[in-house]
């Protein structure tokens, strides 16, 4: 039997993903987020784990460097890779949204036309504003998006929020939802065919565990 290589995302989805995969028999020693080993192998069950940055994960899967992976829908929407999206794992609930400094709130979305938007998600942001008929200047950043309006780099932001605490702390207010997102199980196109029975069983087992754990 060939190895099944699973890509896990660093960050907030990591722990829950490892936990659920272990419950359906996919585990290995020392699958930890700060692992020094780049590839963690379980010889007995023919599984390999790789731990990668979230934005890179779809690329690993698209090229077949990993057979399957778990990743947020927000990243899939941004990266638009040619992969199978097999299962909504329902955890890691968050939403991609538009926020502005409270003091500069305007009456409706289109009142913000022609302003600058800082975001880690330039493709999603462009698409969203295009649909709204707004021409914006998109500024791509790699982190700490909330900082941008505070220091005058942009007037608004498009970013992921879970609870909204960070927004509040920085006096930002959500004005529109771009897209809600949860964790998804994805697969490489070729791996899904060549290891179909194994991956299909994994999907079904995960579905069962989700029912048992009442993840909705």
């Amino acid at each position, binding site marked *: 039997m060939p190895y099944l290589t699973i890509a896990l995302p660093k960050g907030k989805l990591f722990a829950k993903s490892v936990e659920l995969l272990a419950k359906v028999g996919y585990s290995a020693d020392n699958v930890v987020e700060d692992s020094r080993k780049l590839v963690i192998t379980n010889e007995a069950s023919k599984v390999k784990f790789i731990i990668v940055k979230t934005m890179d994960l779809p690329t690993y899967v698209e*090229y077949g460097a990993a057979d399957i992976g778990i990743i947020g829908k927000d990243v899939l929407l941004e990266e638009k890779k040619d992969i199978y999206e097999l299962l*909504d794992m329902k955890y890691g609930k968050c939403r991609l949204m538009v926020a502005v400094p409270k003091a500069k709130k305007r009456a409706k979305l289109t009142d913000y036309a022609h302003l600058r938007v800082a975001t880690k998600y330039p493709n999603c942001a462009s698409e969203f504003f295009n649909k709204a008929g707004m021409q914006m200047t998109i500024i791509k950043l790699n982190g700490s998006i909330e900082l941008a309006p505070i220091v005058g780099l942009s007037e608004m932001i498009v970013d992921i929020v879970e609870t909204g605490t960070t927004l509040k702390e920085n006096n930002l207010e959500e004005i529109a939802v771009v897209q809600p997102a949860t964790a998804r199980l994805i697969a490489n196109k070729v791996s899904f*065919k060549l290891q*179909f029975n194994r991956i*299909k069983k994994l999907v079904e087992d995960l579905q069962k565990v989700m029912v048992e754990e009442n993840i909705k």
Partner: protein
Amino acid sequence: MSENKVLQVPYGTKDLLPGEAGAKRKMEDNLATNFSQWGYAEVQTPTFEYLDTFALGGSGITEESMKFLDRNNRTLVLRSDMTTPLARMVATRMGDEKDIKRLFYIANIFRYEQTQAGRQCEFSQAGVELMGTPEPMADAEVLALAVASLQTAGLDKFKISVGHIGFLAGLMEEVNLTGQEKEKIKQLVLEHNAVDLENYVNTLSIDEKLKGVLGRLLFLQDGQDMLKKLQKNVHNEKSYKALENLLQIFAFAKAYGVSKYLSFDLSLIRNFDYYTGMVFEAYTPDMGFNICGGGRYDTMMSSFGKDCPATGFAMGIDRIILALQREENFSSKADWDVFVAWEAGFAQAAIKKAMELRAKGKKVKIAFSSMNEMEAEQNTLENNCTSLVYIR
């Protein structure tokens, strides 16, 4: 010119160096021999054609096509696939539509797109088109030839998924979906998005049993038993006939001895609007993209004025080479048989000897200056020659 200025090639193009180019040529020669053993004749079409031709062909003009203008400002396009030009050629140049035509090509294709593994903006394809017959036996021949070609190229661990456009089309017609709903479903199937497909199908007001089939389409992958089971559960003629057609093709594939490579995937519809029947793709481990794909396209020729059923496939030569390299099954080292060196005063004799050896079919390199025997041995190695002939 500043010292660090290196001349670049455009995005998505590359050079093939000695060795690489030779190995590719050898593979192409082997493929060409194989195609002709199956009765296929080679054809060539222009590298660029009028945009109208590709628009008619139904492969669609997208931002991927490389377009430019001729001197009369008509739009030209570098060929973005070979099926359309071949259909154009056969329809306009090759007489009676009732004749069966077996054609093959080895050609470079051009598409602006994000480069992928083994897929640059310019890449080469080998392929066949079998025109003039709707018979399932013809589809089986194309499948069997695809298997033989991949084997000829040196692959053996590949697998082929076979689907049928008619299955999904029939299901969607059966439940009277609107054009928009059909497009949405096709889009989600093409994107391989099982999550949204199931969610979307559940919002439609259609029969619960059909929801189960349509919503789980991406998981309909298995052997021929699955087809037989599904036949009992579909209630429209089109889907039923699609399954029947696949079973007939499979029976012929058995006779060809290639059925062990095949499995069925009813979500396989390929991203071309022109397919009408059986479609297939081939995959090999260690390569995240398909290496070969094709299918039946019975209506395309009619856009060129001839009603003519047709089927065929194309394989990506660069991708196959990459897959072979990953299996460490591909040598791109150029080598020669003999190095002819000579002592001062023996140049003419050396030329004569080299010509003799070449006449015997040897691959020969000759030295351009005299050298002693030790230098000659060194040079033999440096020139990748297997043996030395030293003339004195």
